[in-house]
């Protein structure tokens, strides 16, 4: 067990690799009424083609998400109800590289924690229930198809990636999920739901030794070894620089995507790029002031950076009546900043902002748990992240801007009326 402390945050963290191979992070929050536990598996919508038992398997798009839905069903009934009866709120989500199951409660933590760990180890899939789920997931897919804010992102990704599976809809398509059967679900479960592929995060007024003991007792060691996901080669260039879609929307929505080199993206680079984006286009930036005064946007842009195995992209997003002009302004600004670098006072101010906001994140059990699971599946933790932010240097960010933000590897995705 490793005990980490951070004096500036005034927080502690307990980290242990359990006998089964699962990794467990506990962040005690004394005086908090609510506790939250998350169990996540490093298996997401990207893991479509993989090597298991020496053989290649091609699963339909959207299986990881499908599996997430079905795991809540047991032979005796639905796990959601059991959580609810015991004062807990349970949920789950699937993203590009992981599936996470979690609950929060103000009482009976041990009982609910046991429930969580047990149900993710007990797959129960039948032909009948798999068929039934297709209708429900079909409705969910349609809901996302109707949502401009989802469309604008995935259109951007499809313009950005030639081969990488990150451009596929997380839930798949109605066509792809039609091919899912119970054998597929079992196959994918056995290939990826291994303890060595599992990360557990617990946050709240908890006793770490007790939680570790419980987790160690309930998570069983297996012979399972995580399958190896197969990716095709992906060039650094993009397929299309511009993608447009028409939908029922009052103000046009845009995503300006930057394809970033996915190699060696550690926690320092992740937080560095987040700070960099804020410097370039955040609410206090000269660029945003120009864009706002020109009437191109009336709300600050959304800024995002996402990375995983074989993919990394940054997005500057927002509503604008002239997305092309706004995108040009942003690209021009980046070109200028590459030459001139950032102003010292701007860098110091934004660094302070990110330090303050990170500390503020520790107010919330949910924010801590969700941020830690994001880092935990990559073997990193929040204290690493905080140290990276505090030690951030202007020259490092300027280097990233020059080397990684290539104006050829940009995709502008627009959704308009």
């Amino acid at each position, binding site marked *: 067990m490793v005990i980490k402390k951070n004096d500036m945050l005034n927080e502690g963290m307990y980290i242990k690799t359990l006998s089964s191979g699962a990794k467990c992070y506990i962040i005690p929050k004394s005086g908090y009424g*609510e506790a939250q536990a998350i169990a996540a598996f490093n298996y997401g919508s990207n893991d479509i083609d993989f090597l298991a038992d020496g053989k290649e398997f091609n699963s339909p798009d959207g299986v990881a998400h499908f599996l997430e839905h079905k795991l809540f069903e047991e032979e005796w009934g639905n796990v959601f109800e059991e959580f609810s009866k015991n004062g807990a709120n349970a949920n789950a989500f699937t993203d590009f590289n992981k599936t996470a199951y979690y609950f929060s409660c103000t009482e009976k933590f041990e009982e609910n924690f046991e429930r969580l760990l047990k149900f993710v180890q007990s797959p129960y899939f039948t032909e009948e229930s798999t068929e039934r789920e297709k209708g429900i997931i079909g409705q969910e897919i349609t809901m996302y198809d109707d949502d401009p804010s989802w469309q604008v992102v995935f259109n951007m990704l499809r313009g950005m990636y030639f081969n990488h599976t990150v451009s596929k809809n997380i839930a798949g398509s109605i066509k792809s999920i039609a091919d899912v059967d119970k054998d597929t679900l079992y196959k994918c479960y056995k290939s990826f739901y291994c303890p060595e592929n599992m990360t557990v995060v617990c946050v709240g007024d908890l006793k770490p030794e007790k939680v570790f003991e419980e987790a160690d007792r309930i998570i069983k060691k297996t012979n399972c070894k995580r399958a190896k996901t197969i990716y095709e080669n992906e060039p650094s260039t993009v397929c299309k620089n511009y993608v447009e879609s028409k939908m029922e929307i009052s103000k046009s929505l845009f995503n300006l995507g930057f394809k970033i080199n996915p190699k060696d993206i550690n926690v320092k680079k992740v937080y560095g790029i987040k700070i960099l984006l804020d410097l370039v286009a955040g609410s206090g930036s000269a660029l945003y002031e120009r864009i706002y005064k020109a009437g191109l946007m009336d709300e600050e842009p959304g800024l995002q950076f996402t990375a995983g195995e074989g993919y990394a992209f940054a997005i500057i997003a927002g509503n604008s009546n002239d997305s092309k002009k706004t995108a040009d302004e942003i690209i021009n600004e980046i070109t200028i900043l590459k030459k001139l670098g950032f102003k010292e006072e701007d860098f110091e101010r934004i660094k302070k902002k990110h330090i303050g906001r990170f500390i503020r994140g520790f107010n919330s059990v949910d924010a801590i748990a969700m941020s830690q699971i994001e880092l935990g599946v990559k073997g990193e933790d929040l204290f690493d992240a905080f140290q990276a932010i505090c030690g951030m240097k202007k020259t490092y960010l300027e280097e990233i801007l020059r080397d990684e933000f290539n104006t050829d590897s940009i995709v502008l995705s627009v959704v308009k009326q």
Partner: protein
Amino acid sequence: MIELEELTKFNIKEGITLHYLRADKFKTNVIGILIRNELTKENATKNAVLAQVLKKSCDKYPTSYELVRRTEEMFGSVFNVSVLKKGEEQILFFYMEVLANSKVFEEGLEFLREIISKPLIKENGFDKETVEREKENLRQKIRARSDDKKEYAKLRCIEETCSNEAFGVYGDGYEEDIDSIDCNNLYDHYIDMLKHSPIEIMVCGTQSYNTENIIKKMFIQDRQNIINLKPTISEKRNNEKNEVKEKMDILQGKLCMSFRSSSESKGKGFFGMLVFNEILGAGSNSRLFNNVREKESLCYYVNSFMYRYKMILVIQAGIEDKNYDKTVKIILDEIESLKSNLVTEKEIENAKINLSRYYNGIEDYQSGIMDFYLNEYLIGSCENIKSFIEKINKVNVEDVRKAAESISVDTVYFLSGK
């Protein structure tokens, strides 16, 4: 756990009270400044524009850009100005969240002092360009009210239910009242408010010894003839139910029904209503969910909630137009049944578990804590979170039946497709 003893009140000036909620577990201090006004059609729009204008600039930071940069400089402090509707009050609400470090907290308080006491003035009025731009922004916002159909149906239902009462006034104003607002009359209105409105200041976090002093300097006007705001009262009308139907270009019909209760907004009757509402329509095990959605497949969503200040209970459902009569009948029958038949022990137990979890969870969020205490204060109830939950747990099946008995339908509003 926040105990009542941890809540202390200080009188700052005539009609200005500082409520200090000590909470050591958070990383930030939150300060809320609430300038309380009567909710009237005459002033609702003015107050909405005022909040927007005060948010964008002040004398020291005359552009939105400079203002934002100042908050970033203060370690990413969060700052906002908005209008809140609490019963029949419209409150101008200044919100600031700063790191709990005393130095940064005091910088945050000083920032608020600049915003409140030294707005950007040009020739005895607010900056004209700012006012005109914010009037236009509000106009767009009001027009977009009908974008969220579910929300719109709810607003219309309340407007119809309370057509002769202040509660029916929109919290963010009316398009037709925007044009008459100008930079001078808006400024006069603000100064008036600073002189005569009761003001509550809530601080949640760790105290700084200088807090009171800086706050005193925020309010430089002579304070006299402080307005005496009447508490919001609920009234039961024994009228026939009022049916209102409107059409819009939509696929799914939005049903919204209001019910008046004769129970008080605090005390035994209130807690009975709270548990009754939970059983009736607050979760996935509720009567409405089971009988309207699961059994009859009539809707995708159905739920109930309460406007505590007016003791009005609202039921919402998204249904197909053709199922209007059937749905209304099932809902009214369900309520009739709850008036004469007792709920099961299991139902009341589950309701209490859900409510306990919700209210226990509030203590983990400063904004939740502040809102809880503000409501208790404005309503004249004196619970802390612990005693509130204790009272919930004391509710029995007869209390729930009495709560059902206390309600009667007021308005049935239906927004259907063309």
